[in-house]
């Protein structure tokens, strides 16, 4: 499971992430990204999320990986 997360202190609202991953990122009326909370495991979505992270000029976007099973259950 992967979830995009924005560091609000770094983000300058350049909006490149929303161009690359429009399904996961919406821009608010001031141009700052709002990340959708639905976590998709579809490889194409994940690939776009990775590209959005790499493309952020402020390095404000990251991909938080969460194991889908709780510790001890695997």
């Amino acid at each position, binding site marked *: 499971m992967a979830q995009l997360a924005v*560091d609000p202190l770094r983000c300058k609202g350049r909006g490149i992430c929303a161009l690359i991953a429009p399904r996961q990122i919406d821009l608010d009326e001031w141009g*700052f990204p709002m990340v959708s909370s639905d976590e998709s495991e579809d490889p194409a979505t994940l690939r776009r999320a990775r590209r959005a992270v790499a493309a952020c000029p402020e390095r404000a976007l990251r991909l938080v990986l969460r194991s889908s099973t709780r510790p001890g259950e695997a």
Partner: protein
Amino acid sequence: MNTVRASPLFSSGRWIPAAALEVDGNPDQAVAGVGEPGSRVLAGPRLLAGMEPLRDHLERLGPLPELGNAAGIREYVEESGLQGRGGSGFPVAAKMRAVAARGPRPLVVVNGSESEPASRKDRTLMALRPHLVLDGAAVAAAAVNADQIIVQLHRGAGDAMAGLVRAQEERRRARLPELQVEISCGPPRYVAGESSAIIHFLEDGDARPLTDRRAARAGVHGRPTLVHNAETMSHLALIARRGPWWFRLAGTIGAPGSSLVTLAGAIPPGQRVFEVGGAVKLGRLLSERAGLSAPPRAVLLGGYAGAWVDGAAAWELTLARDQLSTEGISFGCGLLGILPWEACGLAETARLLAYLAGESARQCGPCAFGLPRLAEGMTALAFGRVGRREVRQLLRRSAIVAGRGACHHPDGAVLLLHHALAVFEDDVERHIRRGPCDRAAHLPTFRVPTAAPEAGWR
């Protein structure tokens, strides 16, 4: 643990349910002003007597007992159930444990910023009972093995500064064995009192908040940093002397100990800071201490970014951190702001929101751009002509702003707005139909600092 002087209740090993001993049963002790019967951290000379000198402080309370090892003190604090007397009410012992575990050379910061413009409880303690605050800081330092204490103030808090400076001078002359205590003054900005902002200021001279994650990891120059406000420290000073079970004799099981509150808004002149020792009804406090014979229009609880509560409902609220949180209200800094019937809640909220918007550190887009828009929307509703569409848009915008800052500043502003639209629902309706009410022209009930933004962040 052995060297901590145990209280009689504690050493007897008997478990005494705090509810059975709630001070509320004794009407004289539930609410107390400075130096009045029933007060604890406010005990000592009366308000007009000024700062309690070291000699009187020691005569009244005795010296701090030998404190013993750090782990023992933390257990002692844990038994007391003391929760931080700032915003979130986080357990003090847990914070101490986290700091002690993080690494070498910890640092203790007494947060005396009291950024809430109408709150006066921490300043009252530092001005009138600075020795209690410094004793408490010494206990906190011993609990985490810190060798340095910094008191962080806002510039302009002259009374607090005077009390602390004089107290330090007295302690030096009395050759009290003492840690190094420094006083640091930062810009008087709303979010500068947030603990990550204090850490940022002490490290870089910049009082803007960091994200929680970074602050928790860093500390001042990488040193694990324990931040508690002046009131929390004062309670520690008494817990060390009288024991955790004495502490629990006041308050409730879920929120032990007494708490300070500050009255603001439409109140008579005179004393504003009170100590609440039991599960007191807010209505009782307001009738006894604010001269009200009936519920006001509304009460602003917890701070300027707090919760509006309809006056009649507020009158019946029990003033205890845990009971309020079951109602979805944060006790916050203990601010009790009274809105009179002659004033308009929407107009007051518009002014408060404009103030909060101006206090954004402008680090995060949604807060920097969003809060001014929310304030404009509220101002239009309070003083101009708007329709239902604009009110709906205001709500939509507020939902977008909440939860997207590094600190919780935007969340607090949004909460204030939501409470206002709910509590003053009828006024919203009237303003939409007929434009601003006569009460909107009432003089501001809650004062906001005006010159702050020019003060910068350094």
